[in-house]
């Protein structure tokens, strides 16, 4: 199978993720979309690793996973604490950071 197809898939996933981040209001869903974008990137990295015949891309994919895991921990904690104080998980309700 032509490895370039994986790249198309990766782009598709990334686009879905980006659209989700921009469109959805629920913080959890937005968060999942971010994960989707990260994983789309991982797929692209692995594909390029395969195409070029070296392991750099795979190594970076592991890094990405580590960062994503850490981010999930922090992000979910924030979302939970926001939900506790504001009784809402909508990202549009948390709009106090403005002039």
């Amino acid at each position: 199978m032509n490895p370039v197809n994986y790249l198309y898939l990766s782009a598709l996933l990334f686009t879905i993720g980006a659209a989700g981040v921009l469109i959805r209001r629920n913080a959890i869903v937005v968060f999942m979309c971010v994960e989707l974008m990260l994983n789309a990137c991982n797929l692209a990295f692995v594909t390029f690793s395969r195409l070029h015949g070296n392991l750099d891309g795979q190594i970076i994919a592991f890094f990405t996973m580590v960062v994503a895991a850490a981010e999930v921990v922090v992000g979910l904690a924030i979302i939970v604490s926001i939900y506790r104080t504001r009784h809402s998980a909508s990202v549009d309700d948390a709009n106090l950071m403005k002039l």
Partner: protein
Amino acid sequence: METLIGLLVAAPLLGAGILLTGGRRLDRTGHLIGTLLALVSFAFAVVLFADMLGKDTAQRTLTSHLWTWVPVEGFQAQVGFQLDQLSMTFVLLITGVGSLIHIYSIGYMAHDERRRRFFGYLNLFLAAMLLLVLADNYFLLYAGWEGVGLASYLLIGFWQHKPSAATAAKKAFIVNRVGDIGLSIGIMLMFTTFGSFAFADVFPKVAQASGTQHATVTGIGFMLLLAACGKSAQVPLQSWLGDAMEGPTPVSALIHAATMVTAGVYLITRSSAIFNAAPDAQTAVVTVGAVTLLFGAIVGCAKDDIKKALAGSTMSQIGYMIMAAGLGPIGYVFAIMHLVTHGFFKAGLFLGAGSVMHGMNDEVDMRRYGALRSYMPITFVTFGLGYLAIIGFPGLSGFFSKDKIIEAAFAKGGGEGWILGSAALLGAAITAFYMTRVMIMTFFGEKRWQPDAEGHEPHPHESPATMTVPMIVLAFGSVFAGGLFSINSAFVKWLEPVTGHSEGNSPVSTATVTAGTMVVLVVGVALAWAMYGRRPVPAVAPRGSLLTRAARRDLLQDDFNHVVLVRGGEHLTRSLVYLDHSLVDGVVNGTAASVGGLSGRLRRVQNGYVRSYAVSMLGGTALVVAATLLMRAV
């Protein structure tokens, strides 16, 4: 002998230094130190004069180079002195009359607790004035010129606790400043055109100037005239002299009669080479002189303040000198001759006025004098001799010097000569009128004495010997100086090597001029007698005609200055302030406001919605990626 020239200036300068820094310790002796050093300076002057008389005419000029003041490549300012016949005349007048006035001030200022300081200023004035007339270049002359201005400021405002004196001092200083600017511009022009400001370098080059240089010489002439107008109180810079009478009377005698105001005449005579080469500037000089001699005389007629009447007279007499100096080689010698005789009789008149004030509780209004001749016999006689000298009574000093000027004015030739000559004759008539008026109102008629503000009745008495002796000496000068100078044309021969002299072709003979001056003299005196001697003088000034009222206000000179200069200046500053507020501040504030407005719009972007930030991030990333790809493709 050359060293003596430096010492001549150093002596009064030393006195000023000692007296102004010595502090209270010198309060008891200060006036004696000051007077002694003035007399020392006079003694040096006499020694130098005797030495000069002993030499041949060609070798009379002494020069003495002391040091280089500003040693810059291409700009060498020297401290050097040049003593020739012209400087010598001035040096004798300054130190001689100056010493007499020092002596007079011992008596006049006896009760003033700041007497030491007064003598310090007087010495400072002498030093500056000597520097002015002895300098061998314009740069050093300028230093003396400014020094004289400073000393005059300090002395006019000596009684600074009186607001009027403080204001008068400031007025004199500021008006003089205008003239000083003329002098400094003239010197700068001189330097850029001829590359030097030493008399010895500039004058030969002026004579050879042609084309644009010639135009510059005319410009220099005008600038020097402006300077002379400031220092010598000539129209249009005359307004300070009347107010300067706020100073103590010896100051009025020294500065505003005998010496400082003659600095302008000195400057023009010294720069004769420049004026001879610039006929247009000369015309301006004679015009200024002729206008001022009538202006001052008319003002003198209307003043009831004895010192201000004399101030008007000073202005008028200096006008004669300036006019004579503007006539060129036919007039220079007579300008200086009149200057010297005027120095004697005007100083004498002022000292007499001071003596009268001294006896009358410092009253200056002549309408409150009267019948003083028997109470102050010495003052009366010396003042009277000064009076006869100034109106040109035959045989006295003023007769010889003023007649010569009138004759020279006619000798200018053409219509100009007739106009100038008639102006000078008319001036002589008015002089006779106002001086007779002063004389009658002060010494003759009824007693019109009034108690002063504190209710003290005046008890007129003769002044102490320190005051009367200088007056007597000056009276001798008033009587004999002119005659001595005229024996065998001694004064003309003395000054001719420096200023040059030519006998003009007068369309009117000497005898006619003399007869003319006699006629106008008699008319002036008779008119004054008819108005003030024949009937009693009212104690309160009558309203008077339009001209009288204008003359009382110094012919509206202050009003003119106020309307044209003060108001004009106010309008100028107001419009500049408006411009500053609208244009400069407008640009500055406008920039700030537009930046503020723009950022106000821009901050709406910070709406707090995470998703919109995400959009901008995505857009930015897309933009960067697109740009990168585009660069690749290219």
